[in-house]
């Protein structure tokens, strides 16, 4: 049996999305920037896709710029803003951000900018009080995650955005929504963020396509220069089939989302319940129901090594990820460390990420294998 439990890394392309893309490749091959009818027609279709995606994300103002994926969207938000604002500003991100946010901030720091990091609390949420004390009149940007990619914990964005706006209404707010879209309900307008990044392959869409919502496009400097596509913010001929695929995937995912969330949540509860009944010393890293994306389960199994467990499970046909590593040369998960999870738990941390399509039979098989391998490994580790 092959079970894929690594949906936070990437998802399988939906077969209906593939059909849409095939058709787009065959029919919409013209360059949307070309002056001829074929080009114009493709351009119109692309703009329709853009509108649909904006509507699905509840984007009412600003621009939606197509990118090559989540990392580019995050980079463009941060580095594109830094292109205009540099030299005497402060920049803030949280300690649990994805590397595609962490690395640009690290670059800014090396370039001489003042960069601050919001600590994470033990409950997996950023410390809003600490954020409040950090924001000043000099703060150019704050980058925050909507849903954390390792724990699935929703961040307190409403409270965070309020304190940022209250302290400095000019501070730009960038939200990394890559793990949120298609997993929880997203309303970009209600968030009142200035940037919101998404990635197609996280919700059964294609790879190589993403989008960045930008409230004030004029305040962003292009990182890829060339033919002036995407309102001059992102040069390069648009990935038309990718855009069509992302639109189709998003529509499919958001259609009946409440039911899907309910089913995924029920699977999650079942997983936790069975885990606790078959194994002792199992620690679930999670937030309350309202603050937890149901499709990610971070579980720490004491007396195991996650890297070894991944290989054992993969041999059983079960594929998932971990934030930790067996080797002493590799650092463990920065997210769990920021949450002050003890090292011995981080060592055995697994990220199970799934969606509503997981069957009960698959769930049973996974938990059976997990229990079997845990016992085997604990024996080896003399626990």
């Amino acid at each position: 049996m092959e079970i894929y439990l690594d949906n936070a890394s990437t998802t399988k392309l939906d077969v209906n999305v593939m059909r849409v893309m095939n058709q787009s490749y065959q029919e919409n091959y013209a360059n949307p920037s070309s002056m001829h009818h074929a080009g114009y027609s493709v351009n119109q279709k692309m703009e329709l896709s853009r509108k649909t995606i904006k509507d699905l994300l509840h984007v009412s103002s600003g621009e939606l710029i197509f990118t090559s994926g989540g990392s580019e969207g995050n980079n463009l938000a941060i580095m594109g803003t830094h292109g205009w604002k540099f030299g005497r500003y402060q920049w803030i991100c949280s300690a649990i951000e994805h590397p595609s946010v962490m690395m640009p901030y690290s670059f800014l720091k090396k370039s001489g900018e003042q960069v601050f990091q919001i600590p994470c609390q033990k409950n997996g949420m950023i410390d809003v009080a600490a954020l409040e004390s950090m924001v000043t009149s000099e703060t150019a940007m704050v980058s925050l995650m909507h849903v954390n990619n390792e724990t699935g914990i929703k961040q307190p964005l409403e409270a965070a955005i309020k304190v940022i706006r209250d302290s400095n209404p000019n501070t730009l707010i960038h939200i990394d929504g890559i793990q949120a879209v298609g997993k929880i309900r997203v309303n970009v307008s209600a968030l009142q963020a200035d940037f919101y990044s998404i990635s197609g392959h996280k919700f059964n869409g294609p790879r190589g396509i993403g989008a960045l919502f930008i409230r004030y496009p004029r305040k962003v400097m292009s990182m890829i220069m060339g033919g002036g596509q995407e309102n001059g913010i992102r040069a390069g001929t648009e990935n038309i089939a990718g855009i069509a695929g992302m639109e189709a995937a998003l529509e499919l995912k958001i259609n009946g989302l409440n039911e899907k969330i309910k089913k995924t949540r029920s699977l999650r509860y079942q997983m936790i319940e069975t885990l606790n009944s078959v194994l002792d010393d199992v620690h679930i890293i999670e937030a309350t129901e309202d603050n937890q994306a149901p499709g990610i389960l971070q579980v720490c199994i004491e007396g195991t090594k996650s890297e070894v467990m991944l290989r054992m499970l993969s041999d059983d046909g079960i594929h998932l990820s971990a934030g930790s590593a067996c080797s002493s040369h590799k650092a463990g998960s920065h997210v769990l460390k920021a949450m002050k999870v003890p090292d011995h738990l981080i060592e055995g941390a697994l990220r199970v990420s799934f969606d509503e399509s997981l069957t009960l039979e698959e769930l049973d098989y996974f938990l059976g294998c997990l229990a079997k391998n845990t016992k085997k490994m604990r024996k080896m580790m003399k626990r």
Partner: protein
Amino acid sequence: MEKLIIIRSGETVLKGKNRRLFEEKLMKSVRRVLKPLGCHSFYLQHNRIYVPIEQRDESPLLKALMKVFGIDLISIAVKIPVVMEGIKEAALNELLHLQLQRGVKTFKVQTKRTDKSFPNSSQEISREIGAYLLKHTEGLLVDVHHPETTIHVEIKESAYIFSDRIRGLGGLPRETNGNAMLLLSGGIDSPVAGWMVARRGVALKAVHFHSYPYTSKQAMDKVKNLARLLSHYCGPIQLFSINLLPFQQEVAEKCPDDEGTILVRRMMTRLAELLATSHECDALITGESLGQVASQTIQSIRVTNEAVSLPVFRPLIAMDKSEIIQFARKIDTYETSILPFEDCCTVFLPKRPVTKPRLDKIVNSEKLIEMEAMTTDLLNSVEVEWVKEPLHQVVCEDALS
């Protein structure tokens, strides 16, 4: 005028009646690296191998030859008829080239005359050519004691003129000194140890021990890549892989925790010996360096040695880590060795491994395990493959670098 590479073997010339065998093996090694470069015609004459370059670029050929054991010196020469005017002209061309390329200011001419029918003595020839070179160049002086370059003139059935003598790898041609089994890990040391012994003409086979799934597939691939890099010097290597996990599990369950490392080390050596004897190897090779880790103390090495009767070659035993690293860089294995895929999981590392093991205690601990059955099971699970470097690809990459 013909341009060619002259290859001189080192110790092969000392081999008396076996010299022919050694020369044949060297020819075979040279053929192995030159054939993929489209160079098929070369010949052995007067203890040397001559490789006509024709219209080829010589640098890929030289790089390939620099990976052949048994070659002492390499020169790029011109071969011309034994006529004094022609020899002088060729020597002048060589010197002018060096002056232009490297800005040499001093030189000397050194002649070796094996064809005694040539009327002038070696010294007379050197003097005459030297005078000719001085007359036809500007800004060059003769310095017989410390010249920046030496123009070599050899008078045989033809005359050979060359300047540089490039130092080869030395050692003995491969397959002239029996077979040995290398205990190959993914670390820095064992590939170097294997290379050093292979340079003495020993054909390598290798055995790798892993603990999958406690160690990764990437760690196994890393070992294969190291064997592949070695095979560029040593030829195809038969690589045996054994998963030691069943033994490690038994040790973890039944034996004192601090003896884990030495017990596993003895088992590895024992299995390597069994594989060696069944595959025509007369020695084992390890990358042990005295005192480097717990299993490499003088007492641990003694206890490990007691497990086997074949000689164990440990060419790195008295080398410092920095020297071994330098060597690994030289033979191009270092960058692969330091890839972060370890062949030992931290699960198997005792908190305080015994560094001065006592043989009687270790033997007693082994009695807690069904050693014979375990050894048989492990040997039955061995996986074998031949690892070889696609020569032409490597040489082409080298040529580009």
